[in-house]
């Protein structure tokens, strides 16, 4: 049983099918990638998975049907994501950005907060995420004071803090230089070794092809190929899609062997 599986996932904007019956599976403990040209529907797919855009079809996650759950419930089940546009909480400092993801609140907890706001909470997840991404020095800085690269790392750390089973990373390496990107790839592998399953969306072909265990290729809202990095590298349709060959686009969508 895969950790995550989508069945005929479809998103329509007006008359346009942004996602057209997408079936994707992510096995526990693996690093699965999704690549595709700009506008292929990669971010829409993450939005649909995590509950930020209405979709039809089915999504199963950790043996539950989550298709109808609101976004925050999916997040609490351990389905976390990062954002391409770096949606940090600008009014909270780095450590608070992480704490907010780690804390779960109950009604009783709220009432207790009114009298004892500072009762000790488990901070190990926050500390571990800060350490993993090398952010200890920045803990009291405000997001506005950070560089673009640092903000990205805080976004990833925040997703990790929430105790995820699966993290969807939306173009985490965009804007990183090749060396940074390579180091980031190594960090991703370490996270997988620690038991976090990762679903990585990126354009950076060299990163995706080196770190992923399995890949899906998307174009015009459809999966046009899937396989191991080696299989994808050799796939004619993928090469055509990336070169923008008209002939390849008109081919009926198929899956690679």
């Amino acid at each position: 049983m895969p950790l995550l599986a989508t069945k005929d996932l479809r998103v329509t904007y007006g008359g346009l099918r942004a996602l057209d019956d997408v079936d994707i599976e992510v096995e526990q403990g693996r690093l699965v990638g999704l690549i595709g040209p700009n506008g292929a529907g990669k971010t829409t797919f993450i939005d649909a998975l995590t509950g930020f855009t209405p979709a039809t079809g089915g999504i199963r996650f950790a043996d539950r049907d989550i298709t109808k759950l609101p976004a925050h419930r999916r997040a609490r089940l351990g389905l976390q994501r990062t954002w391409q546009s770096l949606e940090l909480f600008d009014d909270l400092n780095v450590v608070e950005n992480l704490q907010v993801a780690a804390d779960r609140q109950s009604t009783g907890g709220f009432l207790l907060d009114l009298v004892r706001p500072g009762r000790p909470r488990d901070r190990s997840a926050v500390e571990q995420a800060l350490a993993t991404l090398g952010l200890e020095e920045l803990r009291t800085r405000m997001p506005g004071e950070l560089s673009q690269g640092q903000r990205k790392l805080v976004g990833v750390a925040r997703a990790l803090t929430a105790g995820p089973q699966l993290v969807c990373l939306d173009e985490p390496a965009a804007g990183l230089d090749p060396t940074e990107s390579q180091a980031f790839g190594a960090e991703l592998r370490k996270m997988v070794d620690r038991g976090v399953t990762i679903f990585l969306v990126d354009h950076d072909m060299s990163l995706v092809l080196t770190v992923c265990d399995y890949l899906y290729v998307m174009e015009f809202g459809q999966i046009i190929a899937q396989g191991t990095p080696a299989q994808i590298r050799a796939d004619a349709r993928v090469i055509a899609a990336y070169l923008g060959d008209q002939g390849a686009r008109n081919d009926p969508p198929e899956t690679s062997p």
Partner: protein
Amino acid sequence: MTSSVTVARIGRIIAAVAGVALLAVVLTDHDQVTAVFGGIGSGALYAAIALGVVLTYKGSGVVNFANGATAMYVAYIYDSLRTQGQIFLPPLPNPLALVEGALHAAGATGINLPDWPTQIGTGTPMNFWPAMLISLAASVVLGLLFHFLIFRPLRGAPPLAKVVASVGLFILLQAIVTLRFTSQALAIEPIMRKQPVTFPGDLVIPFDDLVLAIIVVVVTAVLWAVFRFTRFGLATRAAAENEKGAVLLGFSPDVLAGTNWVLSTVLTGAFGILAASINSFIDPFTVSLLIVAALAAALLGNFSSFWLTTGAAFGIAMTQSWLGFLGTKDWFPHAGSGPIPGVKEALPFLLIVLVLFLRGDRLPTRGTIAVGRLPFSPRPANVAVRAVIAGGLCLLGLLTLSSQWRTAITITLVGTIVCLSLVVLTGFLGQISLAQMTLAGVSGFALSKLVTDWNVPFPIGPLLGATAAAVFGLLTAIPALRVRGVNLAVVTLAFAVTIETFVFKNPSWNGGLRGAAVPPPHLFGLKFGPNDVTSFGDGKLPNPFFGVFCLIVVMVLALIVVNVRRSVTGRQMLAVRSNERAAAAVGINVAGTKMLAFGLAAFVAGLGGALSGYNFGSVTALTFGSIASLTILAFAYLGGISSVTGAVLGGCIVTGGIVFTGLQEWFHVDQKYSLYVGGLGLIVTAILNPEGIAGAFRKGVERLTRTSARRRVPGPPPVPATEDA
């Protein structure tokens, strides 16, 4: 795109339903036809104000809550030209007044230094046309002032700041008129004759209503044509979508915004004069509050279509007039001797909620360059020290100062409570409420009912009252789950007006002219109401122990609000305020967090309302009206909306609080200037210093400590754990 399609569809459905209903009525009953067309004059007024709102929204992306107040202001200019040949000036700061105050304090009471003039003009009453033209010229000046001094500097500000500034403008315009003319209504000589015109089918419409309606329709057509066919209109529409687009067409968005502001104030001003003439009177409130119905009409027109807006305005007014007619029937629910009040006022409110709820998302958004930040909410520091100092000073004042000062301190304490509720809602959660005094009033009126009718004992009464307020707070939160920013401000203002007329002015609730009585509190036989005489101190009223009781409540509530900010709950609220999508993505229940903040804020405000009831011995519609809600927001924002310190400072500057009592005592500045200062201060705060006085103070302290820290050896590295013990 999809949203405007939906809105157009909703608009069409509503229009169709209204049309069919109207037709049915026309076919059945002559009296009803007359009643429906009796609303044509108010419809024209709503439309006039709504058109101004749509114009400024198209031109600058500002929803101008002060547009009704602008109409009222220009009408006063016209009237004072007609009757006295003078234009009144707003009160200007006069440095000589301070010198004079000091001289008087030193005993030299005979010296009077010159003041700014309050009026300029010939003193000879003017004829209609010169008065009208000068009033319109004054409208041009107002439009330019609004644009250049207020809304242009706020171009990149978050929607909250723009709403707050336009609320400040509302208060300011009203305060100026009240200072110059008092709040009493003035009779105005009508411009047009009122003889009714008879139409086929014995339909009778007053001549002036008919003329106004025709003018409004013509103006709507002209505006539509201008925006449809001229380059100016095209550029404004382009700028509304994307400011860069207008630049490419060779127009400066700034000039476009300014032009639209001037167009809007001139139109609004002209209609303000006509409105005054039709009503035969002016006062600072009536026309100002027409903004609620006008906003409903503008919303139905999606803030872009002139025709839909005008049509909706007529539809609302004619339905209201029809409801008024139904109120004369026996089967209509009654309260006291008349039909239940507030049915007319509830109509725009229901329409607003319906439209916003069906549509869900915000107004058509505007592609501006950058959106600024909301006021920073600092982590509470040195809570114990501050609490002991502020509480100690307050206690000392209550036990030693004169009766006048005890009253001022109590009013400050009550004001602080309502400001605290706004800190939770606006400061932490970033949601705006123009109904906070209304919620306080719900609690006050409930308390009055509970104690006088059912003898509910002391601590339970106010707690139940606050709970009632919390229930109403949760009701206002329901629209907030789907709408935010400006739209929420519109909803809450309409809510405030509705509850004000529906409950506070309802004769079966409000206890008539003297207000609904709130008997003094007592616990274990100990009476500590403000009018319970005690032998302590000077033995005069108010009883100092009532102040002490208020102080205890304030201290507890302030601690609770501080704790919210320091805890998970507060972080979740700030996360929702920063970014709702990202908050949901980390597992925060956005809807739940909003409900919690609205409920808590309403509960806190409700306790404020209960204390206010005890303090005055009664609750009245005036204390808790919509205007009171606007002004408390002004004081809370001016004090500092994002911290408890700000709420305390906000409480200090409310009307009747310690600051104005001090100004009156020592500088002979009248209390009536407090609203003027509040409105002006609110605008200045929104533009220059969104964190208010508390924020300015905090930044000053930070700068000082940074300078002194630089002289010392670098300190130890920051402590890893940031959680307060």
